[in-house]
């Protein structure tokens, strides 16, 4: 109706002249805008994955470390989970040679290997440089992964694991060849990334997406923070020790109410040694001599499941760790200034205080995290 009225308002000649000029102008302008966007696209059927949203728990950082070139998607996370648990991820298929991320990063140990092996070893038996770190709340690590912070991203770490002689002892090409030949994987890659190509970059991205979902935010302490539960008197006394300078002063490096990650993700020389020979300490990354013997303050969430402790796994139990901080600190020019209790050789806790501190640390156990089915192995792997 409207169109008919428009046609009737002037002659056909006028109309067509106007139309031609208009079309020319539109064409010219469109060409101007789209000049750089006229690459030919292959006519491949692509898939649009579903965005994955991370809900920020109470008190947690709002800044997430999600690279711009690896946005999280439901399908990407799922592919990452499958790859994480697939023993063929090292490029081998013989039953005796399988190794996946989950071989060492076990959910029941907060994605750490746990006791009794201080140094995990790879598929060919070579040990790693350091004890393991758990995969927990890494979406809030701003780019200093590992004990010395040398790894800039989870994606980079996955690629390092593939090639490391102490881990997969493989190559990206070998892994891609193996994975791309397993029925079902190309379709999972298509859903995660739009097309079915299997590449090292995509493998790393998918696993990184899955690891970023491994969030612990439901310990008893979290519930205490949210006002949902009360801690026991012993736990509260332990919390006071944890969070006061005249107590154990753990909070400056390990967080607390104001930092529920229970790590600053920063690096400290905490007074373990008098001689520093490890070529992989923080000094090896920064070149700052004050960083000799410095390592990341690990998260204390689920710490009771992630022994042995320290970068070299020298302590088997939490009792040993508390005893070390209490009585056995070693002063050197490199000790971090936050270790002010060094003047007394340590925090000098009584046996009762040690138990109270340990009781508080155990409120950081997140059983929901340990048993979360979304974090567990898939029921079936592709091709099986």
């Amino acid at each position, binding site marked *: 109706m409207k169109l008919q009225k428009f046609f009737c*308002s*002037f*002659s056909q000649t*006028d109309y067509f*002249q*106007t*139309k031609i*000029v*208009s079309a020319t*102008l*539109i064409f010219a*302008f469109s060409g101007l805008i789209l000049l750089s966007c006229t690459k030919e696209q292959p006519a491949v059927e692509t898939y649009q994955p579903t965005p994955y949203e991370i809900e920020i728990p109470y*008190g*947690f*950082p*709002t*800044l997430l470390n999600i690279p711009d070139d690896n946005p999280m998607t439901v399908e990407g996370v799922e592919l990452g989970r499958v790859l994480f648990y697939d023993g063929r991820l090292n490029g081998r298929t013989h039953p005796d040679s399988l190794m996946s991320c989950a071989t060492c990063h076990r959910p029941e140990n907060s994605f750490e290997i746990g006791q009794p092996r201080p140094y995990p070893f790879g598929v060919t038996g070579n040990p790693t440089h350091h004890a393991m770190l758990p995969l927990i709340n890494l979406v809030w690590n*701003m780019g200093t992964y590992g004990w010395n912070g040398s790894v800039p991203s989870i994606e980079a770490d996955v690629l390092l694991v593939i090639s490391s002689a102490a881990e997969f002892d493989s190559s990206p090409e070998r892994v891609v060849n193996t994975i791309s030949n397993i029925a079902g994987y190309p379709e999972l890659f298509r859903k995660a990334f739009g097309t079915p190509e299997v590449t090292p970059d995509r493998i790393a991205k998918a696993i990184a997406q899955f690891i970023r979902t491994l969030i612990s935010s439901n310990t008893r302490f979290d519930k205490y923070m949210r006002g949902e539960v009360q801690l026991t008197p012993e736990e509260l006394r332990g*919390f*006071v020790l944890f*969070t*006061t*300078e*005249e107590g154990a*002063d753990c*909070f*400056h490096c390990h*967080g*607390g*109410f*104001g*930092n529920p990650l229970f790590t*600053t*993700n*920063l690096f400290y020389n905490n007074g373990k040694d008098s001689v520093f020979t490890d070529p992989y300490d923080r000094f090896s990354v920064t070149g700052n001599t*004050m960083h000799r013997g410095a390592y990341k303050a690990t998260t204390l969430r689920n710490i009771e499941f992630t022994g042995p402790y320290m970068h070299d796994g020298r302590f088997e139990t939490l009792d040993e760790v508390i005893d070390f901080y209490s009585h056995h600190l070693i*002063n050197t*020019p490199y*000790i*971090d*200034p*936050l*270790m*002010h*209790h*060094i*003047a007394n050789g340590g925090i000098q806790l009584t046996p009762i205080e040690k138990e109270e501190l340990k009781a508080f640390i155990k409120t950081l156990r997140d059983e929901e995290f340990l048993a979360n089915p979304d974090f567990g192995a898939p029921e079936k792997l592709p091709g099986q």
Partner: protein
Amino acid sequence: MKINHINTPLFRTSGIVLMLLISLFSGCDKNENPATEPAKIKFHFTHYNQGEPQQFDTMKYVNAAGNQYLVNEIQYFISDVRLHFADGSGQLLDGWKDIHYVDTDLPETQVWSVFDDLKAGDVEKIVFTFGITAQKNNSLMFVNPPERDMFWPEVLGGGYHYLKLNGKWRTPEGQIYPFDFHLGIGQIYAGGVVHVDSITGFVQNHFDVELPASSFTINHGESIEAEIRMNVENWFQNPNTYNHNIWGGDIMQTQAAMQQGCENGRQDVFTFHKN
């Protein structure tokens, strides 16, 4: 038949194209007139010791108490920076983001380009709060690093450290021990028993700093570069001679030590410099 050109497709299409082109290129057409342009200010936070830029991790300094010491890092908050004009008026700078974090390890925190336009006129002085006032010092208001890592434990008063000045000093016996010169909310302990169960009250230790010699004139269109300098050695002198041998390595639960530090801080720790 008379054609109403305004309603023709040619006119309408041409109009749309013209408007798009104008909007595309309008960003390049800036009319700069200093007489009408607002003035701006950028602050640089610097750290000096004994008149020279602070050197870190070197045991080269001696304080008024005779303690040889080194500085490892300095982290602090200043808030509510105000310009006091000669005509009696005032201007709170960037009131919507009124707490500023400075960290000697993070260069990006050492420059503050004030967003607000400055009013032209004669500034009599600059005043700011060192730390955060009780009204604003709320726990969990900073959930992201690096500000997050300044949190002050709930049992000690909550909120955030005003200052962390970490270093080491040499004792009379020749031992080198760490000191954590941390300022924040103090506690009053009944009977002098330093335990959280004995706390009977808290002390808001934040204080106002009137930057000495901070008068200057703001002209229309002027871009001002100014320096707020921390003179680190003055934390330990004037009016109080702060002695690490007395106060030891940690003072968060020692109000008397924090009080000495705060009294020194409001004197001449901060100075203003502008070319």
